[in-house]
């Protein structure tokens, strides 16, 4: 865990001779990489085992008919079957590409909007509250407008995604900027950072934790909006995860639905890992990582 603080802490030990250093190293608990990985893995495996076990027990108890709630085995088979074909991968690729593009758009719009609203009082008074209001607007409400503006193109999907995610990101930025410690802002101003430079050198980095939190929430919004938005244009030359989710439901195909849900969860886990790494890095820098002092 602490291995990076150390990388940073370099050079400070000029006065510790080689021998001293050896001695110190001996005194420390040396946690190997394998141990660290195992420590973060076994709880996941345990949680998975508990979840799957409970599921299997419910299925065995035959509370619901198997076409309504298939067992883990059935779903696993379905997943394997899907993984063997091209449709799942095509759909996943399409959706991930759209998600990436839509999210990048959303981040751009959200960051700009957030910074602008946080910075200009008039803008905040004018549209500050509108941001949350927009955030609560369900995606389907935007479909007609999206079609009006972009017809049946991917842009229509991106429009819905951006309207879903950007307000959330902007809100993260605003709340981050609002809570930047005044002392640091004053320090920055005194060091000559005014206007944009104050944002670049002080406010943005100070607000980073809240911004990352907002980006994470924004991802969830953008992904959900995408799943909905993908129904605007279904099957124009490509399938998508959102369409598969809907079809699975339409066809009352429970194993397919569950396996699609698993795919979505796995994607979510992957994205969370990325955000987790970013967060970890920030916390290490800021010195809030290990509260008990190594």
């Amino acid at each position, binding site marked *: 865990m602490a291995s990076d603080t150390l990388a940073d802490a370099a050079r400070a030990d000029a006065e510790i001779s080689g021998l001293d250093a050896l001695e110190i190293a001996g005194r420390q608990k040396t946690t190997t990489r394998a141990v660290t990985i195992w420590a973060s893995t076994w709880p996941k495996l345990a949680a998975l085992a508990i979840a799957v076990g409970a599921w299997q027990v419910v299925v065995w108890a035959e*509370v619901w008919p198997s*076409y309504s709630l298939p067992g883990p085995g059935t779903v696993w088979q379905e997943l394997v079957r899907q993984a063997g074909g091209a449709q799942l991968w095509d759909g996943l690729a399409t959706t991930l590409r759209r998600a990436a593009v839509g999210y990048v758009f959303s981040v751009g719009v959200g960051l700009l909007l957030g910074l602008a609203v946080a910075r200009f009082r008039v803008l905040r008074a004018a549209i500050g509250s509108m941001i949350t209001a927009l955030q609560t607007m369900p995606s389907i409400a935007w*479909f007609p407008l999206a*079609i009006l503006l972009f017809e049946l193109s991917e842009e229509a999907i991106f429009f819905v995604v951006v309207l879903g995610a950007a307000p959330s990101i902007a809100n993260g930025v605003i709340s981050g900027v609002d809570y930047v410690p005044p002392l640091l802002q004053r320090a920055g101003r005194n060091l000559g950072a005014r206007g944009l430079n104050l944002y670049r050198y002080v406010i943005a980095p100070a607000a980073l934790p809240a911004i990352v939190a907002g980006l994470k929430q924004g991802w969830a919004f953008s992904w959900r909006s995408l799943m909905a938005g993908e129904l605007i244009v*279904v099957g*124009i030359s490509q399938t998508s995860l959102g369409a598969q989710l809907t079809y699975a439901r339409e066809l009352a195909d429970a194993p397919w639905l569950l396996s699609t849900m698993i795919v979505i969860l796995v994607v979510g886990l992957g994205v969370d890992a990325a955000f987790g790494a970013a967060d970890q890095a920030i916390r290490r820098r800021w010195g809030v990582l290990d509260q008990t002092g190594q």
Partner: protein
Amino acid sequence: ACGADDGAAAGGSGPVTLRLGYFPNITHAPAVVGVEKGIFAEKLGSDVTLETKTFNAGPAAIEAIFSGALDATYIGPNPTVNAFSKSRGEAIRVVSGAASGGVALVVKPEITSVEQLKGKKIATPQLGNTQDVALRYWLKEKGLTATKEGGGDVKVVPQENAQTVDTFSSGAIDGAWVPEPFVSRLINAGGKVLVDERDLWPDRKFVITNLIVSTKFLKAHPDVVRKLVEGQAAANEFVNTKPDESQQAISDHIGKITGKPLDVKLIKQAWPTLEFTNDPIASSLKTGLDHAVAVGLTQPVSLDGLYDLTYLNEVLKAQGKPEVAQP
């Protein structure tokens, strides 16, 4: 599945609750009128409590039937087939028909012939559903190609019905093969009927809505199901004999559920394209399935045992009406 016993509709002689689903929709007119006019309640009698549930799309209704949260529902042919085949013939039975017709291909006025459809975009409600299959099969018969992915001579664009009016009027699509009331709406948005699907079927009849019950409920309470079918027949009678009153009832009922009464003019406009019949027109379902196989959208499935029309025929017989052929 577990036994015939079911929490909300416990067997035996005690009071039974019938949970009936339907959509606040013109193709579900018998259901809507039956509920609004109290026809079901009257036929079911005092020892059966009627609980109605309204849905806006098939999946939730099927999920509810599967999970035992619903005993019977009016539903379209597509979810019917899906529910039957996905439960390997276990979950449901069709006990009556409700409506036929009400589907058409509406296109931009400048399109007047099949040939002009080349290179155009035509919407259907959903990939592989009845209308989608009908369009593709029809195109195939006319010698036009249309791939699942939206390629070929005619680009078939599956999309939610709710969206077709927007896409049609914005010019994103050139036409749509859809059921009522979207046919009427597209016409109002400047569209023109190119094909009335009734013309493609024997006797101009094909199923658009039928009544299904969960097998469990059917086994546990056959008498209740008979009363339900009686109610359905009575509702159909009402709809067919008092169209004006029915149209008003539909408008009011939809208003109650959705927050805004449906324009009676629109109902009147759509009315003649529909036929309200107790016959589930099993043959059309079977043929539709064959068409789906023919255009490569599905694997053949067996529909054996889907229909249980004994109650319907009992009711019809009692009323002295022609019975329906059990497929």
